[in-house]
C-alpha cells in the first residue's frame, strides 16, 4: 500500500461524502428547518476516520453488515453534533452514507497498492461529484419553481427559506395557485391559444416543407445548390433583426394581435430548418423504391404520399416535435405582436403577469409550471425523436 494512495483515498472520499451531506442539508434548510452550519471540520475529520475503518475492516465482516454499521456510526455522530432535528433528517443522512459506503466498497488494500489507483480514484470521484452537482444545479430551479407554486406570498415573506408543502391543508387549498391562474388569470384560454398556434405551426410547416425538401433531395433543377445553401444562411438570421420591419408591416396591415399573423411568422422562421432536416433524411431513402413507384405509374404526389412519407415517419416526427417546441417556447414575436390579452400565448401571458409587479410569486410560478410541464412531458416521452431533432436543428437556439 502506498501512503499517497491512502491519503488521496481518505481526503477525496470524505470530501465527496461531505458534499453529498451539504446538498441534503440545503434541501432540509429549504423545508424551514433551522440549520445554520455545515459542520465542515467535524464531519470531514470523522469522514476520514470512517474511511480508514472501512479500509481496516476490509473483508473481515459481511459486506452488508459493514455498510450498515458504518452508515449508522456516521448518522449517530451527525445526530449528536447537530441538535434538535427531525428524525427524517437523520434517516436521510443514514441513506446517503449508506450509498456512499457502497460506492467506496471496491477501494480495498489491493486496489490502493496499484500504481495509478490514486488518479483513477480521483477521476472516479470527480465523475460522481460532477453527476451529483450537475443534477443538483439543473434540477434545483425546476424544484423551486414547483414548490413556490404551492406556497403563498405571505408565508414566504415570513420565512423565505420555508418551502415545505403542507399537505394537511387539503388539495383545493394546496393547488389554489393553479385554480387562481386558470380562473382569474385566464390561463386556460392562453393554453388553448398556445396549443393552437404550436400545432398550427407544425402542420403548416410540414405542408410547406415536405414538398420542398423532396424537390431538393431528389429532383434536378436550375438553382438547386443556391436554394439549399440559402436555406442554411437564412436560418442563421435571428429574429431580432426581423422584429422592427415585421412590426411596422404587420401594424400597417392590421395583422398584429392576430393568431394568423403569429402563425405566418412562426412558420416562416421554422421552415428553413424543417426543409434542411427533411431533405437530409429523404436523401437516405433508396432511390429504387421511387423508381418502382414511377414504373407503377405514380406521379410525384403519389410518390411523396405513398413511398416517402411512410418511410420517413421518424424524421417527420422529430421535425414536428422540434417545431412544436420552438413555437411553444417562442417569446420575442409574441411579445412584439400581441398586446391584447385575448390573443396572448402562454409565454406572453406570464411576461404580462410579471410586468404587473403586484402579482404574487406563487401565481407567477404556477403559470411557469403550466407552461413548462407540457413541454417537459413531451420531451421525456418522445426523447429519442426530439434529441435527433435538437441535434439537427441546433444551429438555432
Amino acid at each position, binding site marked *: 500500500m502506498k501512503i499517497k494512495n491512502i491519503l488521496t483515498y481518505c481526503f477525496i472520499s470524505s470530501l465527496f461524502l461531505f458534499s453529498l451531506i451539504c446538498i441534503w442539508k440545503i434541501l432540509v434548510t429549504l423545508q424551514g428547518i433551522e440549520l445554520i452550519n455545515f459542520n465542515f471540520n467535524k464531519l470531514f475529520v470523522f469522514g476520514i476516520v470512517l474511511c480508514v475503518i472501512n479500509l481496516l475492516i476490509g473483508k473481515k465482516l459481511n459486506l452488508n453488515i459493514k455498510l450498515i454499521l458504518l452508515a449508522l456510526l456516521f448518522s449517530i455522530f451527525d445526530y449528536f453534533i447537530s441538535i434538535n432535528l427531525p428524525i427524517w433528517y437523520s434517516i436521510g443522512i443514514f441513506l446517503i452514507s449508506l450509498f456512499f459506503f457502497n460506492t467506496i466498497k471496491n477501494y480495498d488494500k489491493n486496489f490502493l497498492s496499484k500504481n495509478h489507483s490514486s488518479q483513477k480514484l480521483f477521476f472516479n470521484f470527480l465523475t460522481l461529484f460532477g453527476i451529483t452537482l450537475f443534477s443538483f444545479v439543473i434540477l434545483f430551479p425546476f424544484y423551486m419553481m414547483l414548490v413556490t407554486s404551492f406556497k403563498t406570498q405571505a408565508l414566504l415573506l415570513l420565512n423565505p427559506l420555508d418551502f415545505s408543502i403542507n399537505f394537511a391543508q387539503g388539495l383545493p387549498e394546496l393547488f389554489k395557485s393553479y385554480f387562481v391562474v386558470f380562473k382569474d388569470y385566464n390561463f386556460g384560454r392562453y393554453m388553448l391559444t398556445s396549443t393552437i398556434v404550436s400545432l398550427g405551426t407544425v402542420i403548416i410547416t410540414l405542408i410547406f416543407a415536405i414538398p420542398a425538401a423532396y*424537390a431538393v433531395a431528389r*429532383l434536378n*433543377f*436550375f438553382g*438547386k445548390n443556391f436554394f439549399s445553401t440559402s436555406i442554411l444562411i437564412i436560418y442563421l438570421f435571428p429574429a431580432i433583426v426581423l422584429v422592427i420591419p415585421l412590426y411596422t408591416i404587420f401594424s*400597417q396591415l392590421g395583422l398584429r394581435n392576430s393568431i394568423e399573423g403569429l402563425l405566418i411568422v412562426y412558420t416562416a422562421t421554422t421552415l428553413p430548418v424543417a426543409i434542411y432536416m427533411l431533405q437530409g433524411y429523404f436523401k437516405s431513402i433508396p432511390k429504387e423504391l421511387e423508381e418502382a413507384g414511377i414504373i407503377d405509374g405514380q406521379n410525384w404526389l403519389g410518390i411523396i404520399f405513398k413511398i416517402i412519407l411512410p418511410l420517413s415517419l421518424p424524421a417527420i416526427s422529430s421535425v414536428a416535435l422540434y417545431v412544436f417546441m420552438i413555437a*411553444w417556447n417562442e417569446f420575442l414575436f409574441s411579445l412584439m405582436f400581441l398586446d391584447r390579452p385575448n390573443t396572448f400565448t402562454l409565454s406572453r401571458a406570464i411576461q404580462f403577469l410579471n410586468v404587473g409587479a403586484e402579482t404574487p410569486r406563487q401565481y407567477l*410560478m404556477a403559470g*411557469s409550471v403550466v407552461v413548462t410541464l407540457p413541454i417537459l412531458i413531451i420531451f421525456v416521452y418522445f426523447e429519442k425523436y426530439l434529441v435527433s431533432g435538437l441535434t439537427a436543428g441546433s444551429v438555432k437556439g
Partner: protein
Amino acid sequence: MSSKLAKIEKRTAYLLILPSVLLVFSIILFPIFSNIWISFKNVKLKDLRIPEPRAKKLVKSIKDNPNQIKIIYKLRNSSLTQEITNVKFKDRYPDNIEPTNLDKRCEFKQKLLQCELGNWPKKYRENLEIVFQNTNNQEISKKGLKSYKPKLSGKSQNILLTYEFTLNNFKKVIKDKAFIDLLSTTFYYTFFGTIGAIVFGILAAQMVNQKFFGRTFMRSVLLFPYVAPVVALAYTWELLLDPTSGTLNNLLINYQIIDGPINLLGQKYVTLNILGFDFKLRLALTTVIIFEIWRYFPLAFLFILARLQAVPKELYEAADVDGANPIQKFLNITLPQILAVISILFMIRFIWNFNKFEDIFLLTGGASGTRTLPINVYQQGFSIGDIGMGSAVSIVIVVFLLIFMFIYFKLLGKRADEN
C-alpha cells in the same frame, strides 16, 4: 424524350419549392431588406399609425323650436405629424329633413350629405355645424339621426413609402458615447457565454460517456434547461436571485457565507480583492452569462457526446496498455477527436449568443450594464419609440452577422476539404 422529362422534372421541382420560397421571402428576406430602407428614414413609433380623418357627430335640439335641429360634426386629423389631403365626407339622413344653412363645400342630395373638405394640416380641428329643418312638421327623432355614422376618406402620405432619407440614424448610433460600451458588453457576453457553455458541455459529456446507474435519465435531465420555455426559467432565476426574498441570498446568509444580501441582477460592478489587487467584476453581466451557460451547455453536451460515442474504443484500450493516465487520455485521444465539433459549435453558438435577446430582456431588461446590441434594438425601437434608430442598430447586427457567417462558411468549407 429525355429533355422533355427533364423539363417536367424541373417544372415539378419549382412547383414544389415555390410556396416555401414565397413565404420565406416575404417574412424573412423582405424584412431584412426593408430594415435597410427604414434605417435611412426618420420614423417614429407613432408615425406607424396611418393618419385618418375623424368625425364625431353630435345632435342638439334647438330651444323653442322643435322643427329644427342642430348637428355638429367635430372634425379632426388623427395624426399629430402628418397632413391629410383631399378629405371627403359623407353622411346619410332620414326622410323629410333639409338643411337650412349649408356650408359652401357641401352638397345635399337625396338624403345624402357630401362635402369636399380639402386638405387638413396636422392636428387640424374644425366644427362643422348644420341646422336641419323638418319638411312634414313632425318632431325630428334624435335617434334616427344618430343611427347613421359619417364616413370620411382622405389621402395621406405613408411615411414608410416616401423618398426622404437621412443619415442621422447611423450618425447617432456611431457617435453615441455608449456605443463602444455596447459593443464591448455584447462581445463580453457572447464570448464568455459561448466558452462557458462549451467547457461545461465537455465536462458533462465526459461524465455521461461513462457507465453508471441512471445514465439515460441523467442525459434527459441535462437537456431540461434547453427544452423548457425561457420565460419560466428566467423568472424562476429572478426569484431565486432576488436580493431580499430570494432563496440564494437567504441561504448564503443563513450559512453565514455572506453578511448582507447581494443584488446579483441589479448591481453593475462588484469589487473583488484578489492577491491585494482590486478587480472590478461586472456582476449583473456575469450573472446573466451564468444563466446563459446554464441554459445552453446542454446543446454543446449533446453534440460532444454524440462525437465521443463515435470515438473507437480501441484507442483507449491501447492507451491503457501504454499506461496513460486519464489526463493524458483526454488530451491525446479525446480532445483531438472532438476538436472539429468544438470549432463548429463555437461558431454557431457565437452567432446565436451575439443575437440573444430574450434571456437578458427577461432577467434584467438591459439594466445595470447588461445592454447588448439586440436589447438596444428593442429599446431604441419600442421603449424610446424611434423605429429608424432601432433599424439602424439591426443593420449593425446584420453587418457583424455577415462577417461571422463568412468566417463560419470558410471554416465549414475547409473542413469539407479535409474530409
